[in-house]
């Protein structure tokens, strides 16, 4: 950067409609081109792989159901995190909040494993959300009271949550009739979200929670609840973060909302496709949701699209293992490329590129 930069970036005054459409298109094109070479290099037919990645997930009721199952927790968590990120509170540990939510919610069906009470599922939903809030609340307390970085605290709490889950399913919460295998009893059907969409489709009613949260977030953001926006809208310069100038309410509200949705997502997993407590309940939804939140521009509607896109790629990646014999790690690379290209192109949505003004003193 010794040479003078020929171009400068100027923030856009108004959103550019062309950029709004061009950015996703360019991102996907670049990813497709890069993936073409990647998959060809792996000796697979790139055409088939790309078809599996982008088209097939949308091609049948079953696959759509899978996309919804995957997208729902991503969108749900991302909506909560977006509020937090807008306030510049960095909750990186939604994964841990999800796990704790799932653990606590599972206590109900584990202790009343033969009940068919209608209150079971609502109870789990409430407890799951509350537990997620408590776990995130630890970070909020340490941040507001002792100024401890929430990035590190939420991250460490995630590892602790994971160990706790391992411990509980190999010990206290394992199924006493399950030959001591590391999992809980199967939940009774009263503890499960009803599925819809036909035989074999695993999509379930937890999607409506995601939908409701999305609508609430959208209303808050777009209909200008002024006080709320001020509170968590992030008018505080991040520069002052470590100096401890962030308003306490913003930290508390951000983390509690993030914890609540992550806890709900945890309930969605154990009361959804999994149906019990086991060692692995999330393939990293809490982390992926951070990316979804940003891919969606921290905008409730954008997040829905971003979550769907991520889910399509996930499902496509799994399918490509079967159809094209692509190693699992290749689909991780594919996701990484997609994100990197998006972040590179997104600059054009936020900034105008102008030719730099001529230097005042000729060089």
């Amino acid at each position, binding site marked *: 950067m010794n040479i003078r930069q020929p171009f400068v970036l100027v923030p856009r005054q108004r959103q550019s409609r062309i950029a709004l459409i061009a950015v996703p298109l360019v991102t996907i094109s670049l990813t497709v081109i890069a993936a073409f070479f990647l998959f060809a290099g792996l000796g697979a037919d790139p055409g088939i792989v790309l078809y599996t990645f982008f088209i097939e997930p949308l091609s049948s009721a079953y696959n759509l159901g899978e996309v919804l199952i995957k997208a729902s927790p991503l969108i749900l968590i991302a909506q909560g995190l977006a509020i937090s990120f807008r306030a510049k509170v960095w909750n990186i540990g939604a994964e841990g909040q999800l796990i704790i939510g799932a653990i606590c919610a599972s206590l109900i069906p584990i202790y009343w494993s033969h009940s068919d009470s209608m209150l079971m599922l609502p109870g789990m939903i409430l407890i799951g959300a509350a537990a997620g809030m408590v776990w995130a609340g630890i970070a909020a307390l340490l941040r507001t009271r002792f100024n401890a970085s929430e990035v590190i605290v939420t991250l460490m709490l995630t590892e602790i949550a994971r160990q706790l889950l391992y411990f509980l399913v190999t010990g206290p919460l394992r199924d006493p009739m399950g030959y001591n*295998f590391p999992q809980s009893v199967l939940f009774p059907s009263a503890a499960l979200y009803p599925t819809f969409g036909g035989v074999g489709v695993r999509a379930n009613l937890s999607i409506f929670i995601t939908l409701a949260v999305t609508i609430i977030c959208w209303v808050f953001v777009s209909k200008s609840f002024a006080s709320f926006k001020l509170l968590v809208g992030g008018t505080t310069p991040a520069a002052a973060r470590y100096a401890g100038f962030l308003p306490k309410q913003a930290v508390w509200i951000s983390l509690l909302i993030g914890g609540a949705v992550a806890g709900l997502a945890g309930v969605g997993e154990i009361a959804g496709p999994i149906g019990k407590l086991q060692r692995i309940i999330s393939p990293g939804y809490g982390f992926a949701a951070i990316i979804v939140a940003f891919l969606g521009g921290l905008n409730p509607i954008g997040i829905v699209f971003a979550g769907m896109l991520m889910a399509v790629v996930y499902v496509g990646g799994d399918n490509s*293992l*079967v159809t094209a014999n692509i190693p699992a790690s290749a689909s991780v690379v594919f996701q990484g490329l997609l994100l990197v290209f998006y972040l590179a192109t997104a600059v054009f949505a936020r900034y105008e590129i102008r030719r730099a003004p001529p230097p005042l003193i000729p060089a």
Partner: protein
Amino acid sequence: MKIWVRTLLGATALGLLLSGPAASDPFKIGYIIPNAIGEAGWDHELERGRQAIVDHFGDKVQVNAVNGVGEGPDATRVMNRMAADGTNMLILGAFGLMNDGLVLARRYPDLKVLHYGGYVNEPNFATLALRHYEASYLCGMAAGMAAKTGNLGVVAAFPLPEVLSIMNAYVLGAQSVNPDIKPVKVVWLNSWFDPAKEKAAAESLASQGAEVLYSLFPGTPSTVSTAEQLGVYVTVTLSDNTMFAPTKHLCSAQAEFGPALIRKIQDAIDGKFVGDDTFSGVKDGSMGIAGLSPDLSEEQKKQIMARLEEMRNGSFQPFRGPIMSNTGQEIAAEGTNLDDTAIKSMKFLVKGIDTTLPN
């Protein structure tokens, strides 16, 4: 953009042509290997099992193997996909895939499911398990012979029932040949994949004076190669690990997934598939030992091989009474043997193991 679409469609059409049905439809098998395939260990043995199937059946079967999908929700999606593609049999190489396999078995009555490590049966859902504890007893004998001062150490991941049965048999084997075995030290990693931690665990046991280490269901060969560096003997489950510890490898269990898999596949092809429990071991060649160290005397080797022979002809089994737990309970009285259910759902540690279990 248009060119791209055309290329895509062209390539897809071509792909469909190439993958069209062959003249005689082979028996289609979907094979799930949970992690990356290494040089030894569980996923390596699953891969050898796949190889054994291919070698035995040739082009009568078509095995579609997938590895590295874990045992969470993503593996489920892969299995669903295979089932929907008209796969005749699913082979599931991880305990965590049990419930999803069960759901698929109920949805597709023509699909046969083979599951490793679980406990559920349905007409088209069978369970496979290996008697790792048998070979483990023999490795324990080798360890007992090699440990002059009687100090043994075990590195293990999580206290699962199968892990406990292997550990118990090992210690019983060691005690059977060496009355001076000291309380056996155990380090739980509480982690599946952290080779640096495995290595440190091995070092910590060696620093406590352990003369023989046992790497129980290792995620990596870390414990074994560390033993070589530290100059302490090492025994291992699942695969021959001689290459990772050329001078200090004492004895490995060697699992053979092939025999049981071939039998079940043949049954399915013949229409005689039964959703039962297969618990196979030394008797049918599913379990053995490998890489016995030249440091053991010929007599000691003979003693170990004699026990192996007794297991083969059924005159000996490792869990025969009296067995006491390390909390002082009598598990099996003199003259009684533990049955397979008790072995599979083990939740005690035998007397002489110095660690505690959750709950």
